[in-house]
């Protein structure tokens, strides 16, 4: 029959056409943005390139990635370099493999100095150009430069930064009940005990769940306490393994934190008992403060964006608003301000002029101001005008970072070898809050420290 013969090609043809149409739908032709009225003045020094392309990979995703791309759009238009950014949550696990196979992006935005050291050790990184180094010497402290250096060679300037060790609280509740912002760790303990004794709710709410990284928020607690109780020298010795992980000073920090995290009187406000620490996602753990079910939550400056999980600004983050943060206080009132924090480092895998031009731009105060103005993040670049930051807390954070009196130390687990900082330390925290003794946990972590 004629019809059947017809059908034989009709069905596949129709299917192919449908698939083709569907695929065109996906692409949604975006018109190239108008180069239009961009002031190219700040970008003249980087030169112009014809059709050069630079690929960047990193862990930054979603809204943060959009802002990142926006932060260099003028640079692209003025220099003619096209920057292609690809974010992936598996970036840290893949980058060494990609580098070894010669498939790494031109620039990798590495969030851990430990990973930077490993990549440099593998011989895959291109040292930073003089322009980048000049920017770093001008705009960053010696500590920060050190984090981008491996074995005496300087590889990358820092990009953004975050401050860890904020304690989030409700200013309204503090005023109503007459609580004072604590100035020492002992005062913080007293405040927590006061809140617990009043019996309305548990003072702290804590969440350690974070997928395959479960446990990391707990490492931040330990790092903050090591830095405050034993000082920056011991902290440095600890992360470089000059003193063992089970050193008594580290055990002391664990025990001090344990008075909160392992105590049913202290946690877990609005959520449950101590066992719920590991099931509560870190993203949502602080939210009971808004409902008045807990009073204190320890988390980095980036937690600001989590107060309004649906977007918008229903919860006001300000010193007279619904929530605000104070820095975890020093051990003694007259000790200098000591903070831990994090940041990223754009390392290069391809030796080319356009790659170095991009890196020079990313290390400049121009970029830092551009990016900070877009909101949500801070930079330790001293060229940043704090007033460009999007919120009161971020302005305060930039001022803390830029203050020469501040003792700044990079997040300890990010400095340690991956086997500890991205594995056994996290797992150790999980088993510690699940009931293992401090000694047992620090011994296990010490045993996992790689010998080479």
């Amino acid at each position, binding site marked *: 029959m004629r019809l059947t013969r017809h059908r034989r090609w009709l069905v596949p043809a129709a299917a192919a056409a449908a698939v083709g149409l569907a695929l065109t739908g*996906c692409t949604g032709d975006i018109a190239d943005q108008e180069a239009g009225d961009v002031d190219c003045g700040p970008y003249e020094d980087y030169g112009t390139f014809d059709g050069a392309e630079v690929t960047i990979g990193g862990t930054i995703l979603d809204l943060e990635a959009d802002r990142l791309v926006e932060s260099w759009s003028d640079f692209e238009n003025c220099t003619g370099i096209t920057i292609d950014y690809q974010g992936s949550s598996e970036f840290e696990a*893949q980058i060494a493999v990609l580098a070894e196979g010669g498939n790494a992006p031109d620039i990798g935005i590495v969030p851990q100095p430990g990973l930077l050291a490993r990549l440099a050790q593998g011989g895959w990184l291109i040292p930073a150009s003089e322009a980048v180094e000049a920017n770093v010497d001008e705009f960053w402290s010696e500590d920060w430069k050190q984090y981008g250096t491996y074995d005496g060679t300087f590889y990358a300037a820092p990009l953004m930064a975050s401050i860890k060790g904020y304690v989030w609280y409700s200013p309204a509740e503090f005023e109503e009940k007459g609580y004072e912002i604590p100035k020492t760790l002992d005062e913080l303990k007293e405040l927590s005990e006061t809140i617990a004794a009043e019996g309305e709710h548990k003072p702290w709410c804590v969440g350690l769940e974070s997928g395959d990284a479960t446990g990391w928020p707990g490492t931040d607690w330990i790092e903050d306490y090591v830095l405050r109780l034993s000082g920056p020298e011991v902290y440095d010795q600890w992360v470089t393994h000059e003193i063992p992980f089970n050193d008594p000073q580290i055990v002391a920090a664990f025990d001090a934190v344990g008075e909160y995290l392992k105590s049913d009187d202290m946690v877990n406000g609005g959520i449950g008992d101590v066992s719920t620490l590991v099931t509560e996602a870190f993203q949502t753990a602080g939210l009971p403060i808004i409902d008045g079910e807990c009073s204190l939550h320890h988390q980095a400056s980036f937690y600001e964006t989590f107060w309004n999980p649906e977007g918008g600004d229903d919860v006001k983050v300000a010193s007279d608003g619904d929530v605000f943060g104070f820095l975890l206080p020093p051990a003694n009132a007259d000790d200098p301000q000591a903070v831990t924090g994090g940041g990223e480092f754009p390392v290069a895998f391809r030796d080319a002029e356009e790659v170095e031009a991009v890196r020079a731009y990313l290390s400049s105060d121009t970029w830092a101001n551009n990016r900070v103005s877009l909101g949500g993040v801070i930079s330790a670049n001293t060229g940043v005008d704090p007033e460009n930051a999007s919120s009161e807390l971020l302005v305060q954070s930039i001022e803390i970072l830029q203050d020469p009196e501040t003792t700044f130390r990079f997040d300890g687990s990010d400095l340690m070898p991956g086997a500890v900082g991205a594995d056994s330390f996290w797992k150790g925290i999980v088993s510690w809050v*699940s009931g293992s003794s401090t000694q047992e946990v620090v011994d296990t972590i010490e045993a996992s420290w790689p010998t080479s």
Partner: protein
Amino acid sequence: MTTADLLGKILQVVMGLAIFAAVVGLLIFFIDKAPKKGRDYWQLAGFLAPALIFLIIGLIYPAIRTSLLAFQDNSGNWTLDNFIWTFTQPTAIRTLINTIIWVLFVPTISTIIGLAYAVFIDRSRGEKFYKVILFMPIAISFVGAGVIWRFVYEYRSGDREQIGLLNAIVVAFGGEPVQWMQTDPINTFLLIVVMIWIQTGFAMVLLSAAIKGVPTEQIEAAQLDGTNAWQRFVNVTVPGIRGSLVVVLTTISIATLKVFDIVRTMTAGNFNTSVIANEMYTQAFRASEVGRGSALALILFVLVLPIVIYNINVLRKQREIR
């Protein structure tokens, strides 16, 4: 991506396929024109070469490299530390024990359930429908299954609304919600349930086909001898499907030894649930301890080897019988 980009990509794919076809065509053409003397060998080499090259690049070279890496530390010095770590660290030992638990439970339970199911639905009305129901999970990827079951086991503390099926049931009957995924050692067994859920369909389909291959005459003869259903099953059906049983058991065993996705998506190896394949990934890529990861890979290889050898032996014996 614009339509032009997409068309470019499609064109690239088409070009690639065309070049591949041309190369293969040329190869076959030349093999065909090979000198008369020793043409067989030329043909043999010609047709084996592509597969062999891919095997060497994709399997043999990586296997050798992994074996070497297992005996090196991060700076490339020769050492046995990686294996010492594997057999002395409490967390690593727990990983090995968990893998053994998996291999003991998953193949046996899924084969038993699959076999029982196959026997019960055999020649019943709606057999196809029953088969489809049990076979469906096998069409879901391990990651997908992991995500689905993670919701089943989800925990919400105290008075908050339970979004996990299992805890919703517990609470509905007046119980306290349980932290299924965080409670050792229940969590490992709950993960094993997911694997059994996936593999039972596979066992059932293969065994059902094998059961249909058992000659009706034998069963009828047994029936005439006055046996009951259980005796017929044990003495006629099971010996008749012995080969298939071995294949099913060994295939599931190998899949179980390699289990990675389920553990990775559901607990990521936390709370003492890690297995060798998951720990291998964690050590090699997250912890940047390539040596430890390679050592675990080597151990996994050694564990799979006897099962594969046994499987091949059984298959060879069966062929000899035929």
